[in-house]
């Protein structure tokens, strides 16, 4: 058993739901108890979809267990086919149904439905959501895609975007435009927006663009082997990665690299005078491996932040993320334990968190600014506006969203200069947070054991209060560390300034 407070990934059948919901003309019959229907609201409420996910749950109950859950499955399967007339169906079991061993795949096969029925084996007690999505897409493609003549015009498939993904909808638009600029058209984007019929046409593309390795890598590997389609390894997140992606695509397609940078603003904004305040800001990165790896590069090379910690929750990406962390001179945190992530963030005294919806909870508790870079996400991560992460516009969007939670450049100086001013006092908060809307974080949310042994003299405490609230927590920690290192138990104004000089950069 494993204790979980929040989890980063759902069970594997939720991954399958993300694939099914992204597609058209596909229906998922899920052998599951009624509680599992909660998953519908992920799509209708969090993603604000205007239709129900194409899923039929058998919703068996305790009284069915002694009787005939298998028959219940067959009835549900037939009813789903009759009502929705899908081009293909996927069938599987959720964690509870897995225990009662009804074999949905085998049962569906005996029913003689007139459309392809694809069985899913998703081991609920071993694997998680990303695996479920990757495996589901792979099975759909393996069952439906066949080698075929390539399109006359140079084309590729976009592989990996799903429902409930972090900005997948807008990334498709952005990447499609990047490719079109090079004269390459998109044959099929899958699973997002694809029908089973579209899946049968995957073989017509010249190569594949793997947009999200978490959900598309198995499919791309299979298509490379069976359909002779090479696939891209660079994910075009950030300016440098977008340039690398364009070069990689050009190489695969045998065309000249071409990237229209007329709308690109990130490099200039990051170099502008206002961004001086970003220099060396201590950031912590956590999320799925792909987004974290890309965000680390953007943070260090394109924004001038100091990456003080990074990690991912999906163990499938542990190896590349460990290697990457080494490059950045930090230790990778590979865990799906939310509390461990929280401890790491607290210990590192970071100034900005780039994480998931879960880190938003941590950030709120610790009073640290936070921007979201990866799933799992929240309703607010499905904005109405066009907000891709990939390509040129993606880089612009990333600059804005990462900088937004921070106090802006000149404002930071004003807060230093006029800290006793009635409008710049602690409780006012950053102006873009609506003035009084954001309460200042508590000085020390939960005093730690170590610090209890250190005594702050009244003068030093008073001086500490003069430091703006958004850096005060760090100043307190640094001073205490500094004092502890020198074996001092009492902190005076002197100690405070000694520590300030020591940590100056």
């Amino acid at each position, binding site marked *: *058993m*494993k*204790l*979980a*407070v*929040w*989890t980063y*990934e*759902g*069970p594997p*059948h*939720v991954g399958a739901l993300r694939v099914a919901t992204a597609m058209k003309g596909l229906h998922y019959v899920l052998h599951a*108890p*009624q*509680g*599992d*229907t*909660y*998953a*519908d*609201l*992920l799509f*209708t*409420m*969090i993603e*604000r*979809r*205007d*239709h*129900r996910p194409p899923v*039929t*749950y*058998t*919703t*068996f*109950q*305790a009284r069915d*267990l002694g009787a005939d859950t298998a028959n219940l499955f067959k009835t*549900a399967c037939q*009813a789903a086919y009759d*009502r929705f007339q899908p081009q293909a169906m996927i069938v599987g079991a*959720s*964690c*509870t149904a897995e*225990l*009662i061993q009804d074999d949905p795949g085998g049962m569906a096969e005996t029913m003689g439905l007139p459309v392809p029925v694809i069985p899913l084996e998703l*081991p*609920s*007690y*071993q694997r*998680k959501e990303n695996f479920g999505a990757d495996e589901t897409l792979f099975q759909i493609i393996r069952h439906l895609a066949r080698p075929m003549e390539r399109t006359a015009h140079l084309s590729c498939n976009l592989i990996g975007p799903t429902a409930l993904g972090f900005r997948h909808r807008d990334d498709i638009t952005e990447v499609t435009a990047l490719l079109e600029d090079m004269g390459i058209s998109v044959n099929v984007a899958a699973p997002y927006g694809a029908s089973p019929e579209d899946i049968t046409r995957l073989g017509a593309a010249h190569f594949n663009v793997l947009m999200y390795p978490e959900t598309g890598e198995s499919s791309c590997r299979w298509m490379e082997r069976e359909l002779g389609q090479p696939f891209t390894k660079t994910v075009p997140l950030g300016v440098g990665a977008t340039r690398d992606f364009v070069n990689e695509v050009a190489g695969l397609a045998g065309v000249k690299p071409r990237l229209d940078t007329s709308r690109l603003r990130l490099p200039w904004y990051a170099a502008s005078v206002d961004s001086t305040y970003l220099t060396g800001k201590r950031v912590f990165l956590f999320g799925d491996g792909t987004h974290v790896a890309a965000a680390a590069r953007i943070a260090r090379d394109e924004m001038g932040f100091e990456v003080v910690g990074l990690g991912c929750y999906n163990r499938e990406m542990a190896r590349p993320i460990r290697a990457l962390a080494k490059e950045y001179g930090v230790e990778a945190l590979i865990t799906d334990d939310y509390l461990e992530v929280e401890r790491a963030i607290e210990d590192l005294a970071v100034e900005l968190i780039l994480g998931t*919806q879960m880190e*938003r*909870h941590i950030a*709120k*508790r610790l009073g640290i600014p936070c921007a979201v870079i990866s799933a799992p996400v*929240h*309703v607010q991560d499905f904005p109405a506006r066009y907000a891709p992460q990939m390509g040129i516009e993606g880089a612009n969007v990333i600059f804005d969203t990462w900088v937004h939670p921070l106090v802006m450049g000149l404002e930071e100086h004003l807060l230093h200069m006029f800290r006793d001013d009635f409008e710049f006092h602690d409780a006012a908060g950053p102006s873009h947070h609506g003035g009084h809307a954001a309460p200042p974080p508590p000085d020390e949310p939960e005093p730690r054991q170590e610090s209890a042994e250190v005594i702050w003299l009244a003068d030093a405490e008073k001086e500490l209060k003069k430091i703006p609230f958004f850096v005060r927590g760090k100043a307190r920690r640094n001073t205490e560390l500094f004092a502890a290192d020198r074996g001092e138990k009492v902190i005076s104004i002197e100690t405070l300034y000694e520590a300030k000089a020591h940590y100056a950069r």
Partner: protein
Amino acid sequence: MTHHARPPDRPHPPAQARGCRDTPILKQRGQHEVFCGLTGIIWLHRKMQDAFFLVVGSRTCAHLLQSAAGVMIFAEPRFGTAILEEGDLAGLKDAQDELERVVVDLLTRRADIRQLFLVGSCPSEVIKLDLARAAERLSAKFAPKVRVLNYSGSGIETTFTEGEDACLAAMVPALPETDARQLLLVGALPDVVEDQALDLLKALGIGPVSVLPARHLESGLAVGPNTVFALTQPFLGGTHAALERRGARHLSAPFPFGEEGTTAWLQAVAREFGVDQAHFDAVTGAPRARARRAVAKAADALRGKSVFFFPDSQLEIPLARFLTRECGMQALEVGAPFIHKGLVGEELDLLAEGPTLAEGQDVELQLDRCRAARPDLTVCGLGLANPLEAEGLATKWAIELVFTPVHFYEQAGDLAGLFSRPLRRRNLLQLEAAE
């Protein structure tokens, strides 16, 4: 109903010659679109501030709680999941030992926990994990500091609000015995609402009053043969039975939704405690008038409109009674996950004949009926709300009716407001101009 004091300005339609008590109930078997009982944890862990809820289940259970609660809760929750892994299922590890290990970890981390609920889930039920035994063992180990109880919130046994019922029912056998004559209020209400109810009862001179669930373990809550209890929620059938087994007696009444329900509920309690009518009228007169005024304001948007209930919380029948009698709506279908006539019988008596009563669900067939009926307002769960809005039907998410303070006089206007807001919004939005 002759005991009811009726001020002359009472706006309600006259009591119906026939209610719905004997209306045949439509029962269809198919896909349910209802939360499981685990979700009760989301409000229970906020209500009982020294309690922790440990679901013994799968990753799905953890994901469910987070998806249902994650949008609302930013503090560290007092709930978690002991996720079953392969080793636990294959019998490679002793489940009791594993659970003990997790509980020890948990109690070390959260020294403030006084009550620990081990909550059974679908997988733990199917593999027949003995949580009663675990609770007994752990109780012995951590007594007297922590009390460990267990109940099932599994989706194969319970829907949504039945989780609260199972939890409260599990607490009843552990309550100390008392012979004192007392009133017990049963049902988890938001603190502000609970305080209002206690103030009303105090003003009526009724006491002593206890509340189940109590906010803290050491509340002095006890039960016995001289206890009479009043339910504040219609989904507490199991708790009702457990209390009767302890010798307590139920005061049957409509539920305290709206002015009429609140008055009838208070009247039943007042009658039991011998409060004279003049005093009752004096205490309730002002809040009743206030409630009527507040409801009337919201009811403008509701009067003459039709409403269709998908099953969700078991609040549907009392709410249909409120909407039809106090807000002038017409109920087309009232679906409930489970209809306990012993508890909602008086509600059914008040609900005029007409609507289809449905128990359980085949969501596809019910959607067909809903589309055919084109109600002005559809009350449904979160999975259906946006898709129905997209089809042009105004909806009220049922979940707000469970999470928002809606009981008793001072909330009657808010309760009506929850239903009128979707309709007012439709009038406010001029979407054609934007298209």
